[in-house]
């Protein structure tokens, strides 16, 4: 056999093995995400002792974009997501999100306020990325719903 065809055969075989192994290991793995309901304020530290400051990393990232002086976690939930099966996450009495993994790395996030659908967002999210839904609130405050797909 010609050396060139011999080497090509080996390379092709190796490629098939790698493809088969990766296909088998992919499986219907559950994706873990984290959701936080955050309050942004220019006022003093809130009197509610349940509120904790957000993580230093998220704080740094939000501050690069938004103007509020401090950010506080109202609720934080981690949840698993199997493909096509939505996860319903209650973030507060009036705020709920539903997250669906529609494809390998494509997600749909629905935000409900007072039981009504406010926004539906569908997009690719890769590990390390964050989606922030937010808006102004009374007294120069703001709310944020942060959905993150952490790096493994």
């Amino acid at each position, binding site marked *: 056999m010609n050396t060139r065809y011999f080497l090509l055969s080996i390379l092709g075989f190796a490629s098939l093995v790698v493809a088969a192994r*990766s296909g088998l290991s992919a499986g219907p793995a559950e994706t873990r995400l984290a959701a936080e309901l955050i309050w942004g304020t220019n006022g003093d530290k809130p009197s509610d002792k349940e509120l904790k400051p957000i993580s230093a990393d998220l704080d740094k990232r939000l501050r690069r974009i938004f103007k509020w002086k401090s950010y506080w976690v109202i609720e934080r939930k981690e949840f698993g997501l199997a493909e096509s099966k939505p996860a319903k996450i209650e973030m507060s009495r009036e705020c709920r999100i539903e997250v669906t993994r529609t494809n390998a790395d494509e997600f749909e996030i629905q935000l409900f306020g007072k039981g009504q659908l406010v926004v539906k967002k569908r997009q690719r999210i890769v590990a390390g990325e964050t989606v922030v839904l937010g808006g102004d609130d009374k007294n120069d405050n703001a709310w944020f719903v942060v959905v993150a797909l952490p790096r493994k």
Partner: protein
Amino acid sequence: MDHEFERRLQAWVDGQLDPTEARAVAATVEKDAEARQLAQNLRSLSGLLKTHAPEPTVPESRDFYWSRIRNGIEQADRGAERVDGWGSRQPGLLRWLAWLVPAGAAAFAAVLFLQPSNPYPLGLTPATPVPALTDHEIETPSDEVSSLTFYASEDSMTVVWLGRIDFL
């Protein structure tokens, strides 16, 4: 005082009018208290800007940028010469490797493309996140809700800013 006069007044404050026009504007300013107030505001704003506006400076000189571009081009040329020389002069196995490496890379790329359900089949995580707004959809069922979407690439963060919603 109409908008056109406001523009002329601004030009007058900036010293951009010819003498005839400048005299006309000055006469109006003398008679009209509102015009006088606006002229005063414009002068004080101009003073504030001159005093406080930051002066943008480039951290490195123009020559430095050009020398970097020139060095980059020269290095690329030298690299191309080395590859050409290496491929044509090396005998035996090394010459095989010259086309085996790209062939291997092509096979590897094919393996990645043949995996529809898992984008990172070898456990790879992209070093740079894929910009999220290349394929995204957004719906706001209520006409009263306004939305603005942008992608902060430095922070790997997609932001959807919604107007007129009260959650807290």
